[in-house]
């Protein structure tokens, strides 16, 4: 092939475009190929409120803390718990005392040593610091130092999620010297793989970390520099990803298409379920909801697959159960318990004496308007009126707690069985504001609490009960659309929209 004048022009233009991309594109890694391979920049949704480990949260709000704080237990991508700062842990026979053996070779970045006293200081601090996850240690009545590398957690009542919590916010270990100080709110002091570069960090804009020298576990420290770029706006996240400013970030089905056009790689993961929470099951305010046949009719009214494909671009899986696939409480047979059957829905309503119609009131919120319109239509087809009310306000959680809503269309996190039960099933759960229960259900819940490692299996019974009784009308499990470029390998983390910090590695 000969190069005519035209192709020369094209070549020059392409070359200059490439050169401009390299200097102006805001690429985050200057220097040679080696340096490029060891810097990781992540686009995150918001900055942490306080670096005090007791103020850590769950999911994507946990990730930044993992950069500086090690946790007692490490949660593997598939949910399995492995040793981290704790080398071994064991319950007594009644599941009321958890004995935890600790590493002896770990120091914090301020030089303080990690030992049993430090672990106790952290757990005690967490119990009284009034952080968003404080209930994680509610069951723990006392933390005792047995010897330099052993602590004992005494429980007031068994908590099958405690080991999981020790891999989450409650397990993060900060330097005991810094814990009660003001300083730790803005500058974290932990034993983790990275230390914060305070001078390069700006609140709500970016947080920069450098690898900590002499970190005890080189396997968890895969980068020399780690930057969280805070991009609250979805458009900004999409633009930053496709232009190479960040290596990975969370998008949605629509912006995901754009990212795929730019050859970004999807690491998708089902984290939440979406559907109706039929809260007023005793019929206090909406008498129709007292009848299980009405609640079941609502479940039969939806063509889940078609709605998912049309409205959510197919990003998810239709389901009839509220418990997550990875939780252990998931039951294969419940997946399609309520298929699309308008005739059956109508028959059930007739049987219950509500053929003249049922009204379901739900609040709306930003982003679900078109979905609610479709659901309203499908409910109308079986004789149920969906009354879409005012948008959720920022008083939402208090409104739910004060029984303002008799039903909700919502998206809820699918956590560990005991977490899920305390979120939406037990009488203490926020999403059970009318405190519905029966002796039968309570017995099943109690069985989960004392089941220890068998909690998942025991929770299947709770799952079956709430599905049979149609406490909810689940529609789908939703895909979280986490995208990354080809410079980084990303392993999705079960039950998290955003992977744990250990799940990233440079692509070879």
């Amino acid at each position, binding site marked *: 092939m000969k190069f005519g004048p035209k192709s020369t022009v094209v070549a020059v233009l392409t070359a200059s475009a490439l050169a401009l991309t390299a200097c*102006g594109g*805001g690429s985050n890694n200057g220097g040679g190929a080696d340096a490029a391979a060891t810097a990781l920049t992540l686009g995150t949704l918001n900055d942490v409120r306080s670096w005090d480990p007791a103020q850590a949260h769950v999911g994507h709000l946990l990730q930044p803390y993992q950069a500086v704080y090690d946790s007692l237990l490490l949660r593997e991508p598939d949910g399995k718990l492995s040793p981290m700062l704790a080398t071994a842990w064991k319950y007594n026979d009644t599941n009321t005392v958890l004995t935890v053996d600790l590493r002896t070779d770990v120091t914090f970045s301020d030089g303080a040593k990690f030992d049993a006293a430090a672990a106790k200081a952290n757990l005690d601090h967490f119990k009284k610091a009034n952080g968003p996850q404080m209930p994680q240690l509610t069951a723990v009545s006392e933390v005792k130092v047995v010897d330099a590398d052993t602590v004992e957690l005494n429980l007031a009542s068994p908590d099958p999620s405690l080991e999981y919590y020790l891999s989450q916010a409650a397990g993060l270990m900060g330097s005991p010297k810094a814990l009660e100080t003001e300083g730790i709110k803005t500058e974290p002091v932990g034993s983790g793989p990275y230390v914060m570069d305070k001078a390069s960090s700006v609140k709500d*804009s970016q947080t920069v970390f450098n690898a900590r020298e002499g970190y005890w576990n080189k396997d968890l420290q895969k980068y020399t520099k780690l930057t969280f770029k805070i991009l609250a706006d979805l*458009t900004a996240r999409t633009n930053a990803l*496709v232009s190479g400013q960040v290596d990975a970030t969370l998008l949605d089905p629509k912006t995901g298409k754009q990212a795929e056009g730019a050859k970004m790689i999807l690491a998708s993961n089902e984290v939440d379920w979406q559907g109706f929470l039929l809260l007023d099951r005793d019929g206090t305010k909406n008498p129709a909801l007292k009848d299980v046949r009405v609640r079941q009719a609502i479940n039969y009214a939806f063509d889940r697959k078609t709605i998912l494909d049309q409205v959510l671009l197919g990003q998810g899986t239709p389901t009839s159960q509220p418990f997550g696939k990875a939780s252990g409480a998931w039951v294969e047979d419940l997946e399609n318990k309520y298929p699309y059957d308008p005739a059956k829905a109508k028959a059930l309503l007739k049987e219950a004496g509500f053929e003249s119609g049922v009204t379901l009131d739900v609040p709306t919120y930003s982003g679900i308007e078109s979905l609610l319109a479709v659901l309203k239509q499908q409910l109308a087809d079986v004789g149920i009126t969906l009354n879409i009310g005012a948008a959720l306000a920022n008083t939402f959680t208090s409104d739910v707690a004060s029984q303002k809503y008799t039903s909700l269309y919502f998206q809820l996190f699918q956590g560990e069985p005991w977490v899920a039960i305390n979120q939406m099933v037990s009488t203490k759960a926020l999403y059970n504001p009318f405190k519905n229960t029966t002796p039968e259900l309570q017995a099943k819940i109690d069985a989960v609490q004392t089941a220890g490692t068998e909690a998942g299996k025991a929770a299947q019974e709770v799952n079956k009960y709430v599905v049979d009784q149609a406490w909810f009308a689940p529609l789908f499990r939703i895909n979280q659309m986490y995208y990354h470029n080809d410079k980084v390998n990303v392993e999705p983390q079960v039950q998290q929209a955003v992977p744990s910090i250990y799940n990233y590695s440079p692509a070879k």
Partner: protein
Amino acid sequence: MITFILKRLGSGLVVLLTVSVLTFVLLYASSGSIARNILGDQATPEQLLVKEAELGLDQPLFVRYFSWLTHALRGDLGASWFSSEPVTNSLATRIPVTMTMVITAMILIAVIATLIGVAAAVKRGWVDRVVQVGAIIGDSIPGFVIGVILVTVLAIQAGLFPATSTISPGAPLNAWVMSMTLPVIALLINGVTGGAQQIRSAVIKQLERDYVRTLRSRGIGEREILFKHVLRSAAPAGLTVLSLQLIGMLGGVVILESIFALPGMGPLAVTATAQSDLPVVMGIVMYTVVVVIVVNLLVDLLNGWLNPKVRVS
């Protein structure tokens, strides 16, 4: 002159005080659920009570307002309920970003709009028609749409600019210039088209006045008439439009700052308001009111300087 400035500043203080009372009372209604919002949906009722006491939410409105006011008078605007960051700190890091953007855009708008507006008024004919049509097109496209188009074409496809801000501590001037270029252009276009329209009609109006005819009859050159007399008389109209634009821009930058991830006042205002983070919202409202008062005062002074007719005795 000094009395004039003092009077204006005095009335500004009254406005500031009134706005602070109104904002405080309006936000009070939604502060009932603050503890819930901060602690999340798993918090127990006991936790909520502790948090409310910590934030002083158990105090009556009156007590809370006066405590805020006395602290504010000492320069202490409190700390965010959510991040515990002092409000003065947040403002100090964010105001420079927003102000750099707004002031740069304003200066460019003033220069470009004047050039275009005067050209359209003096030349008329096709120049005028192009300016008129351009003004309609420019005015009808919202700034954020222009912003998104600019990012897609110039940042993502051509790679000439960073898609989102690269401003960080110790960032070279270059990073500021590169990060600000696209948002400033997006802000510019609406401002220029709107401003040029106003300046054009003000200049045309002046050119039709008798004094211009008189000046011409005395043999004074067109250039001198335009720059020495017409522009001076047309200036108040132009300045008023520009000052209104600047104040409007404080709202316009909110979306642009989000799209370009610029760490300015916009994203802060949006999150703080959505969360009812009262100390931060109060800080932002105070900042906005101060900007509005200062801009209006400056415009009055400038007008007086340019045009003795409107000068206050």
